[in-house]
């Protein structure tokens, strides 16, 4: 249908919160199908605000958002929310049903799936994040890392065009962090990942965007951006102590 269009196009997007705080000052970005892109930037840069526009939770004050060629508007919200899978930072916000199975089924069931097709979606999604064993457990019995993985499954089950994750590696122990990275690498969907974890961005995403004070301040290969100390310092970004960007992107 719209396979020629990029997964995501944002142009001149501006937004002010109802209390008057201007959070976005004109954001432009394009993400092609199949790309994995990191969205970096200091606290308060507007990353979460931008993410909330991608599936119409917030509506643009100015400018447009298009997902695979379809503009985000009140009358397209249903289709937009099918195409954009948002993984929230706190899995307890995302997992609200009494069992993992029901939680993963919630999205596709809202899309009208029932019966065998619904079961297949739930199984596939849980299998892809390695959580099929937990299918009948209540989410609050799972560890934090497991809950984060189930949260990813809840949106994968909707077979989204683009997966958007807000700080996926936060609060994960090193092993869970690595497991999640492997899952994300194994998926063949477009990924936009908000993160403060620069080595994680380098590992997972070839391309990065730096957001600062409500605009995209830099856009390029992650490797090149992270090697540019002046650029990082200008936007309050810092590599962890002892971390050096490898000479050649690997």
């Amino acid at each position: 249908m719209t396979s020629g269009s990029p997964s995501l196009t944002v142009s001149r997007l501006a937004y002010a919160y109802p209390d008057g705080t201007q959070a976005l000052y004109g954001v432009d970005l394009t993400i092609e199908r199949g790309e994995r892109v990191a969205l970096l930037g200091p606290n308060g840069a507007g990353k979460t605000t931008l993410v909330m526009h991608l599936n119409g939770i917030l509506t643009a004050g100015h400018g447009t958002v298009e997902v695979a060629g379809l503009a985000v508007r009140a009358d397209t919200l249903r289709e937009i929310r099918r195409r954009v899978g948002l993984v929230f930072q706190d899995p307890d916000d995302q997992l609200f049903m009494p069992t993992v199975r029901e939680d993963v089924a919630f999205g596709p069931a809202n899309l009208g799936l029932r019966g065998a097709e619904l079961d297949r979606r739930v199984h596939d999604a849980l299998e892809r994040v390695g959580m099929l064993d937990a299918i009948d457990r209540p989410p609050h019995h799972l560890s934090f890392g497991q809950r984060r993985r189930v949260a990813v499954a809840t949106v994968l089950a909707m077979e989204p065009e683009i997966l958007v994750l807000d700080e996926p590696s936060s609060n994960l122990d090193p092993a869970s962090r690595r497991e999640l990275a492997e899952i994300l690498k194994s998926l063949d969907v477009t990924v936009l990942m908000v993160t403060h974890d620069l080595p994680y961005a380098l590992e997972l995403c070839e391309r990065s965007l730096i957001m600062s004070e409500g605009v995209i301040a830099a856009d390029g290969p992650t490797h090149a951006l992270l090697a540019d100390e002046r650029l990082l310092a200008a936007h309050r970004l810092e590599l962890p102590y002892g971390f050096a960007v490898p000479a050649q992107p690997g």
Partner: protein
Amino acid sequence: MSAGHHHPIYRPADTPVHRLPPQCKLAAVVAFAVFVVATPRERVWAFALDALLLAAVAVAARVPAGAIVRRMVIEVPFVLFAVAIPLIGTGERIQVLGLSLSAPGLWAAWNILAKATLGVVASILLAATTEPRMMLLGAERLRLPRLLVQIATFMLRYLDVILDQMRRMRIARESRGFVARDLRQAPVLAKSAGALFIRSYERGERVHLAMLSRGYTGEMPTIRDISATGRDWAVAGMLPCLAAVTALLAWSTT
């Protein structure tokens, strides 16, 4: 993070009672309670029969008497109320152990105690054999207002999260030297309660956004199929039917 989840009242087991669809059990308990209430209080034997019916269910569900008795503390307020009635009641008075008690008051007390006890025990048996989650699905099946069922579903899901938040706030208070010794500390606790409310409220907002993101339009999709067969209804119906027969017999004998 969350401190383990348990519903101690539910006793997992695989018995015919456990296997019944929740909506059948719910309807059976409500109908049973209605027939018990409709039984005239003077027919003491009728209540004994009803108690026997419940005992039979308890045996079939393998719920030990001890577990039922422990859950019956919920009835204590009724008991206190019932004890007061013969003391303050009017009408013909009789002497018991040197106390002057009102005869109609005694009957009223018996009426409350017997009927409340039967209702409470039936509910305990329901809760002991039905997971809270299934109970809500059953309620939805019985066309209880969806909104109420949804609210209860969320309470069930977030109870642990909120309890955990409460526990963390208490630890934070105490690690900064707070000890709840007497009433003077009440303002601190009240403020914590307020903060807890706001945190829970904000959580609710975020959950709502997460639901919207996955296509929620105001109605929960029904995913689990818990349909009941005619046989299920017949089995569950035995309890209220026998209670109805008992009530009829009680009315027709004098």
